[in-house]
């Protein structure tokens, strides 16, 4: 197992390198460098442009250097000093802006993942075991609907319903009195009373596809000969199902974390804009629209890194779960 972990960690290095290059390219993509955008904006507002400041910034980001030097400067600042550059929109270091929001985003994504699994597991097992029952059809239809509805639309509908029927605008993760309070039990409870709304909205599509994955895999597994063997031993049906086919079908289920996590993070971006959460979403979109590329690039880099780590964790979980992988690679 230790060998497996080390091998996977080594695999991560080229992936991370490639991600950082892609991110850097995205930062560089908008025509002109960000300083010219900055200067253009200053002059359009009629502010005086401080040429010395501009020169200093040019120096700081090495804008006069060849592109690979610029990349090296950028990535080494991040890796060695945790310096992600400055946001010209907020005129503050990116690092000051993002960590709080990232914490919430990660918490939200992980919570959503767990809730999705918790909901999808019993429904998926039920739908497969009781294939063609009324319940199966109902869940399948709801699942299709969940997959077809973009989660921001779900959020919009939710906002509309709560505004219309409960006369209040919902949103945020905290009640106003807790928003700026320090963390204490009350704040945690307040968070819990708010967080289920975004969790359910963000998790809808993911849960629907989890149910489909589990149901399809379990249906395949239920027809396998080893299930018949277990039946021929005289075991009760529910024990057979939980011990053998469900166990097998959970493998693909676990590896869904690899792609579910990125899509949850993506969904979070959209949903948090609609229901006004202080997570990465609104800031990322704001940064992208105003082409505040260091801010946006940092988000993309970190979110991508988190995804890779999530995939790694789900791979390891899978290896722990399935002895065949453990023995083949261990």
């Amino acid at each position: 197992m230790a060998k497996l972990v080390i091998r996977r960690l080594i695999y991560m290095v080229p992936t991370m390198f490639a991600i950082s290059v892609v991110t850097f390219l995205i930062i560089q993509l908008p025509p002109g460098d960000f300083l010219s955008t900055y200067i253009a904006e200053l002059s359009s507002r009629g502010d005086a442009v401080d040429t010395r400041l501009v020169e200093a910034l040019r120096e700081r980001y090495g804008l006069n250097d060849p592109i690979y030097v610029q990349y090296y400067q950028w990535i080494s600042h991040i890796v060695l000093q945790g310096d992600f550059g400055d946001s010209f929109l907020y005129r503050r270091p990116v690092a000051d802006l993002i960590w709080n929001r990232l914490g919430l985003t990660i918490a939200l994504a992980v919570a959503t993942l767990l809730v999705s699994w918790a909901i999808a597991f019993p429904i998926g097992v039920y739908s497969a075991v009781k294939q063609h029952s009324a319940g199966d059809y109902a869940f399948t239809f709801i699942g299709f609907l969940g997959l077809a509805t973009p989660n921001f639309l779900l959020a919009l509908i939710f906002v509309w319903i709560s505004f219309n029927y409960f006369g209040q605008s919902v949103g945020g993760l905290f009640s106003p009195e807790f928003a700026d309070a320090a963390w204490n039990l009350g704040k945690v409870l307040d968070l819990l009373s708010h967080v289920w709304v975004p969790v359910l909205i963000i998790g809808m599509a993911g849960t629907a596809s989890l149910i489909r994955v589990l149901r399809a895999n379990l249906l395949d597994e239920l027809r396998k000969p080893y299930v018949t063997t277990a039946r021929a031993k005289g075991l009760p049906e529910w024990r057979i199902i939980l011990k053998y086919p469900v166990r097998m079908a959970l493998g693909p289920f676990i590896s869904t974390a690899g792609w579910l996590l990125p899509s949850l993070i993506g969904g979070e971006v959209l949903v948090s804009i609609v229901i006004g959460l202080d997570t990465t979403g609104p800031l990322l979109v704001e940064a992208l629209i105003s082409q505040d590329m260091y801010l946006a690039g940092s988000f993309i880099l970190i979110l991508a890194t988190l995804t890779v780590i999530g995939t790694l964790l789900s791979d390891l979980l899978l290896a722990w779960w399935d002895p065949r992988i453990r023995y083949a690679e261990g």
Partner: protein
Amino acid sequence: MRAGERAAEAGGAPAAQAGGAPGAPGGEVLVELRGLKTHFFTDEGTVRAVDGVDLEIRRGRTLCVVGESGCGKSITARSILQLVEAPGRVVDGRILLRRGGADGGPGEVVDLAGLKPGGKEIRSVRGKDIAMIFQEPMTSLSLVHTVGNQMVEAIRVHNDVGKREARERAVELLGMVNIPNPGRLVDSYPFQFSGGMRQRVMIAMALSCDPGLLIADEPTTALDVTTQAQIMELLKRLQRELGMAIMFITHDMGVVAEMADDVAIMYLGKVVEKGPVDDIFHDPKHPYTRALLESIPKIGHRRRERLRSIKGIVPDPANRPAGCVFHTRCDAFMPGRCDATVPPPVALGPDRQVRCLLYGGDGGPAPGAPDAQTAAPEPTPESSHGD
């Protein structure tokens, strides 16, 4: 081979083993199928996979069920344990199991066909009175549970023993089926085993509750020839030691000659001929049986002669021919009779039965065996005595 050798064994052994009820030549009947019908209700129509099968399996003896692919052998076997999956269902007939009574006690007779699949009663039969092993040793075991785990589970369903005790029993069983170093391998996973080893594990698992009947559904088909022979030897040895009955399903007449005490030939969901192995090999009656026998390669004799294969293909079971189901491929086809009348069973001896109009059954002229023998020349099993 071997039919000759078998004759000695078939004649001598059972009496010694079972010491069965007087009058019955091969021991007391353990399981008896009467008019068993298992149908699949598919979108395309009803598939009559098993359509009125009568069989009897005797204590301590081996019944081989033979037939081409798709003729309903596996479904028959599964029906006995109510293991047929939807859309299939046992629709008619009786499956009588004699429980207890082996030691001269009174015993009781249960009709398994009446039990609910998955219900408590049938579960108490599965694995305990009747155990089953399957064709695919690769997929018949769970690959993510250790061998020990799966065996301990099988032992503990029917026996009130602790985990340690069950584990010791599992190691002992693995040793019995010639698994080397059973104390260590009990903790490995099936994917670390070869196909032959897995089939041994399956056998060990099936024996864990001392079943009176072991159903083996083509247990050697997926294995190479050497392993095949080893597994068959193993089964014969275990049968000698434990005295269980075996229902052995195969489509290989060579294997039949090796294993069987009794033989049942199946075609399209019906038993067309059954009887003791020597009678079947020396004096096959049904044209289908003859055709099957002609398709065995014979060692040392007329080497360059081509093997005969049965002409045509098995008809679609959803769309079975009228009258005798074999008439579309039969060499002795009698127009106007075979395609009109379903042949009833004709008894040719105490344990011998055939379903063919050549031997009467529709009230028409029964030219009897002689005619048939000219139509399909007698195979010469004696000629296989070359080795």
